[in-house]
């Protein structure tokens, strides 16, 4: 059943490419809206179908009602200080508390509602946010580096997150959001370090950045391996985190990740036109009025934060940020004003779908980390597109 849905969704996406005609071409904003609306519909469908799948089979109406009942509007937001203890120190750590008003109250089977709201939806929504964040950052990084192999982690964000997370696991640091926070900090610090290494006299050549990223990733890989050697009985947990999974998703994580991802995405979207011009090369971009170095700093910083937020809650999920932007570029073309929102929503749908496979797939020893599924499904589909659409450049 799932395969059928996925195939239908794919066919829908591929056949809806609007033809370009001199006297009928939609403006980029309109194209972005049309495509986003279509893909949002696909995303909602994927979310609802995904929520029906699991050890307990639920019907679509039950899921739809339960999901609508879960739609809440925050009425008050408060920040309280919690604490994170590490190495005997307690670091202050703000926690966001919000009160929600729920809009709907459909009569629904109680068990079904609990399963949907408490178990399946948090994971599905978190998957959607993570996919959204990774695909946005991946789109921006591919444009930024003018390199089709660029992904959100190209400047070492994921490696940094891995060091942070594995250190937390191996050294048994605890605290609210301890694992996520240290992964996030590791990611941000790494991105910042790579940027500093590659910058000279206020200029950050893209090629230097790329190579510095590769070198730092290699180094951090060594650090992670060393920490793993000393992880002892925590080894399995650490490895599992590094494979990328949404196993322990909860609404708290959603509440922290959504604002970061959405705010970051909006900033990136505001820079979509600049990103298009940057594709012409930095000198041309400068003569066309782009403040090249400042724009590069903004794009790098924001996409690193967005990626770090995703990686912190879901571990290293590869391939979403690499493949989804490519798939969408084949469909909607290279204009980032259209490509960025479309990729982001497609990334959300893609990760929800692949995580559904991960949840539903039974194999000896438990469930499958979603990172394995994204790579296993994404790569062949990408190769199929590559061979059939004859696209060989960015």
């Amino acid at each position, binding site marked *: 059943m799932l395969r059928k849905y996925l195939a239908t969704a794919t066919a829908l996406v591929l056949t809806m490419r609007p033809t370009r005609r001199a006297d009928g071409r939609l403006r980029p904003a309109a194209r972005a809206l049309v495509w986003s609306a279509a893909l949002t519909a696909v995303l909602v469908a994927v979310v609802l179908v995904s929520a029906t799948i699991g050890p307990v089979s639920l019907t679509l109406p039950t899921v739809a009602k339960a999901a609508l009942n879960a739609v809440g509007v925050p009425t008050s937001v408060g920040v309280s200080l919690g604490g994170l203890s590490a190495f005997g120190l307690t670091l202050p750590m703000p926690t966001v508390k919000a009160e929600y008003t729920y809009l709907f109250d459909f009569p629904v089977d109680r068990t079904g509602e609990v399963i949907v709201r408490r178990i399946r939806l948090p994971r599905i929504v978190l998957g959607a946010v993570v996919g959204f964040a990774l695909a946005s950052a991946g789109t921006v990084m591919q444009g930024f580096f003018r390199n089709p192999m660029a992904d959100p982690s190209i400047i070492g964000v994921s490696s940094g997150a891995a060091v942070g997370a594995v250190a937390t696991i191996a050294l048994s640091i605890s605290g609210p959001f301890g694992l996520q926070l240290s992964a996030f900090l590791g990611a941000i610090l790494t991105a910042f370090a790579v940027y500093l290494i590659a910058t000279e006299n206020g200029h950050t050549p893209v090629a230097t950045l790329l190579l510095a990223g590769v070198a730092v990733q290699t180094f951090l890989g060594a650090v992670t391996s060393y920490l793993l050697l000393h992880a002892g009985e925590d080894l399995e947990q650490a490895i599992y985190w590094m494979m990328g999974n949404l196993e322990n998703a909860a609404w708290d994580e959603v509440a922290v990740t959504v604002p970061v991802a959405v705010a970051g995405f909006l900033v990136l979207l505001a820079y979509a036109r600049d990103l298009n011009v940057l594709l012409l090369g930095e*000198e041309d971009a400068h003569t066309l009025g782009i403040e090249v170095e400042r724009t590069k700093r903004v794009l790098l910083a924001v996409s690193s934060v967005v990626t770090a937020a995703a990686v912190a809650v879901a571990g290293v999920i590869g391939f979403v940020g690499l493949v989804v932007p490519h798939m969408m570029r084949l469909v909607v073309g290279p204009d980032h004003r259209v490509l960025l929102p479309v990729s982001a929503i497609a990334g959300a749908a893609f990760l929800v779908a692949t995580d559904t496979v991960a949840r539903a797939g039974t194999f000896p020893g438990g469930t499958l980390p979603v990172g394995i599924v994204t790579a296993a499904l994404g790569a062949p589909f990408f190769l199929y597109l590559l061979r059939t659409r004859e696209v060989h450049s960015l």
Partner: protein
Amino acid sequence: MSPGLPGPLAALLPIVESGSGSASDTEAAVDDGAAPSDPSAVSDASGASDSDIPGAHGTPAARADDALIDVRDVVASYGDTPVLEGVSLSVAPGEFVGLVGPNGAGKTTLLKTINGVVAPDAGSVRVAGEDVHALSSRAASRRVATVPQDTTLAFEFPVADVVEMGRTPYHGRLTSDPAAAAVVERALERTETAQFRDRTVGSLSGGERQRVVLARALAQETPALLLDEPTGSLDVNHQIRTLELVRDLVETEGTAALAAIHDLDLAARFCDRIAVLADGDCLAIGPPAEVVTRDRLRTAFDADAAVLSNPVTGTRSVTPFPSTVDLNCRVHVAGSGPAAARALATLSAAGATVTAGVLPAGDVAATVAADLGVETVTAPPFSPVDAAAEAAARDALADAAVVVLAGAAPPSVRALVRDHACLVRTGAPADAARSDGAEDSVDTIATSPVDTVAETVREVAADRADRE
């Protein structure tokens, strides 16, 4: 894909050109001060735009303080390699200046210091009265647009989108420039790229792509336009059309254009002034007729060239020869027709002090001799050589170390030269056959094809010097 205006745009255009368009143009002009927003607005109300551009008096012979582009003592380097060593140059509004010079002379670097890409180590670059390097790149790109030599074009973008990127300095972060559609349409039409509007840049040929980049620069609507080898990959037709377009911009809209051009003939034909750049230094700047000279080309390019006047365009035409021989002697060329013309040009390019005669007035060789500044004895065509001409010719012959008899020569001319000690015969056998069977009456010491006449003359002159 139908050519011509798309429906919605066609509907828009009249409105834009008459009423609302000029309102938004005024806003843009007020917003920036320097950039004329719509070319039509500029030509309609040139008085208003002149007040925006300092010194827009349209006098091609620019004084530095009238200049729209004013480069003073600019020093620039790539790392430790000095590229520009104190270059000064200015371009007035309504003036087209060509930048010529050998490879590696620093032409591209000079253009990059003007558009703000390369920061000079010393000196100043002002465009429309502002120091380019103190401006934001947004403000700079409203003053100066660049057609780069090669562009990493994002190949999957449609042509219209690439041209629209020229409006980048007029867009807000979240808002779009309202004039963009009309300006882009105009730029597409002026560069004859409108028919490619919806094709991706990657599907175009190199020359078509270059015109797209030119359209992008036009869409920037700047008072200054820089072009780096704009005709580099264009066919002859589009070379001319592109330069005509630049000329048109310069004349109708008061654009200050500066173009690096390799083709000296094209530069001389289209530019008001030419600047010769060599070894990071500006050797000369002035009208083509003054600047494009054999001596200067020799200094700048290390190549011998015959600088003639193109009879069709009336502008300078440069025929370069590989620099192999350096003649320091006086050579007299007798004979007429194309062979004599070629001998004159070759010998002149090789550095000889050339005299010619007796030539029938109006002969191709006489025209070439006049262009080359060769001292020439002429006689009216189809009439015998008179006494005065004969005396003048004898004087020239007496001073010449070597005499070259090239092409067809009447018996009177052959009689004049036959006694000279060093007589070289050049020209195709056909020329000899035409000389009414009297060839054997001339005693030559060497014969040479016209291509190598300079080498032969050098050998003959050297022999003569040895003998004396």
